């Protein structure tokens, strides 16, 4: 696959890389160093080097013979990772890269300033990406995919290296975000807890001090966790932070934030504009919003059914299902307003029969007892103020504010 390279050319490419590597360290040039470690970037320079390594065979000798030998523990494994990556041996590439990264961390610990943070970011990113690919390879040959889990353990170690008083601590949130990506992928989101606790309570960290890109990513993931925990005010706060701070150039990320923020906002009685749904292609929510506006129970159920897979996959199905109570509230309110226009004096008495009739019109078959049950839930949850005249099967609404608004608060539990 590689074009023919002479031994001399191969040797030149290898020493060129080694020179760049040692120059980057001696001049504390984090950016250049990071480029030399971006195994999965497929940069031309690295591909050239990978081919040279295959031709030359014995690059380790070059490393050990020269002034680069002090970084041999990093370099030997970076070379191996790179070469294996080029040959598509992804498991091997991951394992070598993990060794290189371990050696890198040892050096990084000893550097007093934070100049090499950018290189550390690349290590954290690469370890995750290489592990993902290694796992795909493992699964394809029938073995247990376990590298991504290993990458998680490694990154916890990296987190520990950064979580100190010094200037390197601003890098801790980047590593945290890489960990989130791993845990969400593996479905082990409970493991997020300990890093979150550290970020949010350790005195060494001041959240505002972290780079904005990491703050946005962090708030996105912790916001999703709050959605799963059904803690909607917290989810609203975090996802709204992510939304307002996200770079407008990253439309895909904005869309992902909204995918979770929209149901959260709906659950506290706030609707997205049609423009917002349209602009970010979130049409699956259009009918849900319309159902809330109308009080159209049938439409809500239909919308949930139509996009069931999607809502279940993202974990917002249960949130949306609970909107039913708000839709009932809206429907009863509409009945109340219609009655009021006809006869203002009797409007606050709503016969359960009438609600049954309205529901039947919506093709929802419920008897009076079931409707009474729904009404008592609405009253209990403070979505309706009133009481029952049980015998006459009438709900008597309060004359003042019979349909309290949520005003940004969740429905009572």
């Amino acid at each position, binding site marked *: 696959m590689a074009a023919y390279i002479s031994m001399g050319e191969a040797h030149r490419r290898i020493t060129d890389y080694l020179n760049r590597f040692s120059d980057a360290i001696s001049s504390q040039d984090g950016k250049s160093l990071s480029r030399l470690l971006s195994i999965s970037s497929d940069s031309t320079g690295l591909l050239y080097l990978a081919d040279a390594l295959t031709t030359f065979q014995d690059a380790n000798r070059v490393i050990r013979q020269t002034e680069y030998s002090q970084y041999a523990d990093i370099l030997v494994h970076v070379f191996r990772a790179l070469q294996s990556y080029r040959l598509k041996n992804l498991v091997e590439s991951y394992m070598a890269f993990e060794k290189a990264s371990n050696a890198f961390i040892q050096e990084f610990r000893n550097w007093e300033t934070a100049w090499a943070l950018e290189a550390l970011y690349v290590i954290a990113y690469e370890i995750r990406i290489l592990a993902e690919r290694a796992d795909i390879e493992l699964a394809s040959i029938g073995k247990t995919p376990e590298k991504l889990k290993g990458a998680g353990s490694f990154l916890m170690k990296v987190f520990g290296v950064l979580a100190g008083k010094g200037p390197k601590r601003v890098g801790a949130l980047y590593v945290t975000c890489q960990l989130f990506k791993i845990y969400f992928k593996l479905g082990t989101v409970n493991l997020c807890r300990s890093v979150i606790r550290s970020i949010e309570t350790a005195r060494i960290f001041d959240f505002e001090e972290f780079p904005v*890109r990491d703050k946005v990513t962090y708030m996105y993931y912790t916001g999703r966790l709050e959605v799963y925990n059904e803690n909607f005010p917290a989810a609203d706060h975090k996802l709204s932070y992510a939304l307002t701070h996200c770079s407008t150039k990253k439309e895909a990320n904005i869309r992902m934030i909204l*995918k979770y923020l929209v149901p959260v906002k709906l659950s506290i009685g706030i609707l997205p504009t049609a423009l917002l749904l349209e602009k970010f292609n979130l049409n699956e929510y259009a009918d849900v919003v319309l159902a809330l506006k109308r009080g159209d129970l049938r439409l809500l159920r239909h919308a949930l059914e139509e996009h069931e897979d999607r809502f279940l996959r993202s974990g917002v199905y249960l949130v949306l299902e609970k909107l039913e109570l708000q839709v009932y509230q809206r429907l009863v309110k*509409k009945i109340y307003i219609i009655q009021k226009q006809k006869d203002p004096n009797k409007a606050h008495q709503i016969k359960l029969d009438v609600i049954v009739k309205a529901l039947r019109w919506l093709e929802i078959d419920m008897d009076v007892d079931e409707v009474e049950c729904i009404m008592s839930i609405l009253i209990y949850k403070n979505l309706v103020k009133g009481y029952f005249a049980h015998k006459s099967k009438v709900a008597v609404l309060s004359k003042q504010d019979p349909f309290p608004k949520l005003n940004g608060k969740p429905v009572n539990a």
Partner: protein
Amino acid sequence: MATEKQKPDTEEVKIDLFEDDDEFEEFEIDQDWDEKKEGEEISSQWEDDWDDDDVKDDFSQHLRKELESNPAKNEAKFT
């Protein structure tokens, strides 16, 4: 020095191994932006006073008709 080098020739076959459909895209490491200004417009795209007393929309009109119709007729429609 660069010629077009072969890219990894195919995307890896997607195995439903572990998935998170909503994995946040990486921001560029050195990407920075004015965090105050960026989201201003988008965060105004919410309504909290939609729950009005307006019953002039089609849905409400139909509902009104339905409630005013006599039960027998209604029964006939659904059986």
